[in-house]
């Protein structure tokens, strides 16, 4: 069986001619934050905003929106396909290389020929993004947390919160709880039950293994595990069949990016409800709204972008196919847009 594409460690091919031209710039006397440059893109932050510029354009993003999106782009290793920070700025993952763009998936910028893109070796841009995220995240603010569970990102430079932004992404190799695999979450391991899941049963399944089969007769409480997640909108792999990855996550407030996946992506709503805004991947024009309640399962086609809203913290099982053949199929235009015809 093919090995799954790891999003975390993709080196550009040695023949890559993509840019590695990035630079850490001066500290602002006014704000105390550093500026950064990657190719023609410049990044500056002030008390309220991220200021972006590139040859031919400028853009402003509220700093909370920018940091939440940047946190996901970094933690997910540029994720699958397109990560839109907003309607203008984002990244496209080529798995080893990455395109940073402005207006590439915005109808008005595209039609007017005002969009701008540059392609980088992933490791180079990732290093800059990580440094930026570390410098721009102030003490007390956790861009992974739900807004009601963290401090505020506003103001001039005041401390840092590297513990929050360097959490290890959880990726089970076979299943959570197996010997040598991702451990269960417990109070003592620093994962108390979240306030919004206080009523979720914490019982563990009955597991009776005959001698010699202790490592194969295995089960755990997935809902209990998810109730103890300290982050939002951060899919982590819990069980693996070949390239089939169950990536459940707990969701509260807004998915911090508009995700334009390059392949079909499935959502199984495990608890409560999420509303999804679905827009055309290229133009951003609205196509559908999906209301998913507990037990609902649906697919996001490969030619859309989606953003979810969850008032009550909810459990969502994101189901991905990490097959290494898919990027090639995407490049050749042979990857299917929908998973099944009926």
């Amino acid at each position, binding site marked *: 069986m093919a090995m799954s594409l790891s999003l975390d460690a993709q080196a550009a091919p040695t023949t890559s001619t993509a840019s590695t031209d990035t630079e850490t710039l001066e500290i602002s006397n006014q704000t105390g934050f550093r500026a950064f440059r990657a190719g023609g893109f410049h990044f500056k932050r002030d008390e309220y905003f991220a200021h972006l510029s590139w040859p031919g354009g400028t853009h402003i993003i509220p700093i909370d929106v920018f940091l939440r999106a940047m946190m996901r782009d970094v933690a997910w290793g540029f994720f699958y396909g397109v990560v839109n920070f907003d309607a203008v700025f984002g990244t496209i993952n080529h798995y080893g290389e990455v395109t940073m763009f402005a207006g590439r998936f915005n109808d008005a910028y595209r039609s007017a020929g005002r969009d701008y893109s540059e392609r980088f070796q992933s490791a180079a841009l990732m290093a800059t993004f990580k440094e930026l995220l570390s410098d721009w995240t102030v003490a007390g603010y956790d861009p992974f947390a739900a807004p009601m569970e963290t401090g505020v990102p506003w103001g001039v430079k005041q401390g840092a919160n590297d513990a929050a932004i360097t959490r290890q992404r959880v990726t089970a190799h076979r*299943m959570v709880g197996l010997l040598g695999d991702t451990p269960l979450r417990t109070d003592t391991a620093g994962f108390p039950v979240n*306030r*919004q*899941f*206080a*009523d979720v*049963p914490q*019982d*563990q*399944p*009955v*597991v*009776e293994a*005959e001698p010699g*089969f202790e490592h*194969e*007769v*295995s*089960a*755990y409480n*997935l*809902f*209990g595990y998810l*109730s103890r997640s300290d982050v939002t909108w951060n899919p982590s792999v*819990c*069980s693996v*069949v070949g390239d*089939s990855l*169950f990536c459940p996550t707990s969701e509260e407030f807004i998915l911090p990016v508009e995700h334009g996946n390059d*392949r079909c992506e*499935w959502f*199984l*709503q*495990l*608890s*409560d*409800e999420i509303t999804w805004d*679905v827009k055309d991947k290229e133009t951003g024009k*609205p*196509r*559908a*709204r*999906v*209301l*998913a*309640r*507990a*037990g*609902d*399962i*649906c*697919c996001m*086609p490969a030619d859309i972008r989606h953003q979810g809203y969850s008032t*009550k913290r909810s459990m969502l099982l994101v*189901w*991905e*196919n990490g097959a290494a053949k898919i990027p090639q199929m995407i490049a050749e235009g042979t990857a299917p*847009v929908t*998973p099944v015809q*009926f």
Partner: protein
Amino acid sequence: MSDVITRFGSLDDYEKGGVEIINDDPRNYVFSNVFEVAKTNAPYARVAVGINFEYVIEAARAEGTSPWYTCAHDEFVLCMDGDVEVHLVKLARPDDHVDPEHEGAVQLADAMPEGRKMGRLVLGRGHQGLLPVGAAYRFHAEKPAVILVQTILGDVTVQKWAEICQTTA
């Protein structure tokens, strides 16, 4: 104490959402509900509710005792409602039952396959268990329950998308 209420679904109590179309075909979203699928199909009919290339998620109502199954790769079962027992047997000669290259689960003819007893799981709602490669397994539920299986499209997978999915706006 918190007065928070987390809403899980069940066979008897689920409330389906849906696709609200602006400019699209609802079929593109392959939208169904696992409790509805489990409720409206025969016990242990393993109906695909998700498919991604060769990979599937099957939904089934566990009720009474299932046939024995085996598989040439790992599968995982997630209990979504009720209580489900999983019995596991290490097959003495797994290749006699399923080709090592075969994908998806196969149903065994035997009432009790030959092999060593591995053990037993009792899964409640939200519990996920391993159905390890090389094992035969069967489910048992005293009362109707709902299970999902993470696996590959195979002999026992039922596909009936037009019947289970939203097709109109």
